[in-house]
């Protein structure tokens, strides 16, 4: 397999006394789309939030094992979360642009990371919006509030906002669940464009989406990775009974 940008070893995660993830060993390949699937509560969202340590926001979370992102264990005590989160961007389930203008939504990341000078901002904004195919729609509306965009545009803007920070990895936590089928397809097309430059990890409850859009798929159940491999193989010939039951719709 190709170069790994994320490697977890014996990763377990606890919410207080409840164990949400158990001994996860997962290698995520560079410039691939990796889908995490599984029934509700299986830990897929929890797992994706391990990679940028967003779980830290929840009280009582503890993690054992290691998570190596680009050669560095991000659960070392001296990890710089700010740099980590710049390198590992995240797109959420519901589009969550800031209640600022379109322009400011994109420059927010640049300002907090002091990336580039203000002179370059217009270029970066344009480039980021072009990457998510929003530029033509929004080039005359940069000063409009992002809250006035359609949901699909908002979600694209959220992706653009992440791209502006030049991350290496983009985590997507059910990014299409608030969108209609057409917008969903468009976002999936966009992901295919983005994977040329970025590693993408996507959580989805939609198995067709995983089958259509991803290169690798991990099936999680009750906090464990049951099966992991190339998406084609997982969907055509799963080796585990549970995987087969899930993807054929027998439970979940």
């Amino acid at each position, binding site marked *: 397999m190709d170069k790994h940008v994320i490697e977890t070893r014996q990763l377990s995660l606890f919410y207080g006394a409840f164990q949400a993830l158990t001994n996860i060993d997962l290698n995520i390949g560079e410039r691939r789309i990796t889908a995490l699937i599984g029934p509700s509560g299986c830990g897929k969202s929890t797992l994706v939030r391990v990679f940028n340590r967003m779980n830290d926001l929840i009280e009582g979370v503890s993690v054992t094992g290691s998570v190596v992102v680009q050669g560095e264990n991000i659960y070392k005590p001296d990890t710089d979360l700010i740099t980590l989160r710049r390198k590992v961007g995240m797109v959420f389930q519901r589009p969550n642009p800031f*209640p600022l203008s379109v322009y400011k939504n994109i420059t927010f990341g640049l300002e907090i990371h002091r990336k580039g000078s203000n002179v370059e901002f217009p270029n970066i904004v344009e480039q980021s919006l072009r990457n998510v195919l929003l530029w033509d729609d929004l080039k005359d509306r940069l000063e409009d509030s992002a809250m006035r965009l359609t949901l699909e545009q908002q979600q694209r803007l959220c992706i653009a906002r992440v791209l502006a920070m030049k991350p290496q990895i983009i985590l997507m936590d059910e990014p299409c669940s608030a969108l209609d089928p057409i917008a969903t397809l468009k976002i999936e097309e966009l992901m295919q464009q983005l994977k040329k430059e970025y590693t993408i990890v996507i959580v989805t409850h939609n198995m067709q989406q995983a089958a259509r859009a991803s290169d690798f798929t991990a099936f999680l159940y009750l906090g464990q990775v049951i099966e992991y491999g190339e998406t084609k193989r997982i969907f055509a010939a799963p080796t585990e009974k549970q995987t087969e039951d899930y993807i054929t719709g027998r439970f979940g």
Partner: protein
Amino acid sequence: MRFRKAKEFVIERLIYLSGFMSIVFVVLIFAFLLKEGLSMFWRVPISDFLFARNWYPISDPPQFGILPLILGSIFVTAGAGVISIPIGIGSALFIAEIAPRRTKEVLKAGIELLAAIPSVVIGFIGMVTLVPLIKNLFDLSTGLTALTGSITLAFMAMPTIVSIAEDAITAVPRQYREAAVAMGATKWQTTWRIVAYAARPGMVAAIMLGIGRVIGETMAVMMVTGNAALIPHSMLQPVRTLTATIAAEMGETVQGGEHYAALFAIGIVLFIVTFLINGVADVYLHKTKK
């Protein structure tokens, strides 16, 4: 069936009526103020009343210029604002965003308690602690000054500012915070650039309502400002506010007399000012809801 319908009808009307009453009361109060106070402006033109420099209501001939009183109110209110707005907004941000749950509960209870202290008690405490302190600190002949009033009233504006601003901050959707943190924003960047920004209308409303309370406050301010109806030149001079004037002089007036009408005219001025301030607060509160 018929009875039930009639009952529904009556109850609906009663509720409608009680809702309507609050407006009726305001209108009646304003009408009463106008009835008693408007005659003042036949005797003294409005511009003279508002901007003449002398308030000598019982000398002969009396002089009814409320400029010193207006300035007194402005000095005390502005001072209270300068003190209470930064502290109030700061503590609202702390309570809503930073404080651990236990601390938050304790602080919120404390703020509510502060709001529940009768103003005369705050005035009394100000009188025995702040007044001598200010007198000694600045080496003045009296500690009854605009500054003393400002500090005292800041205590009264604070609970309003904190609790309303805190509500506005807490109402900012979680997703904004998550998005900012996920982009690598620090706690402070998230709080200041995103959360406080999103809560801005609510914070403006909080400030306006706090200030509204200060302008209308009477008892505490009367006890600590010295009540000299002179045009103030600094925060360290005694002042008299509009409210204190009404409270202090109403007992000495003859009903229907000129002085009596002048005090009601001050009431009209106060009513309009607080009405405007609450109006602005209301506009901003509605902005937050959208």
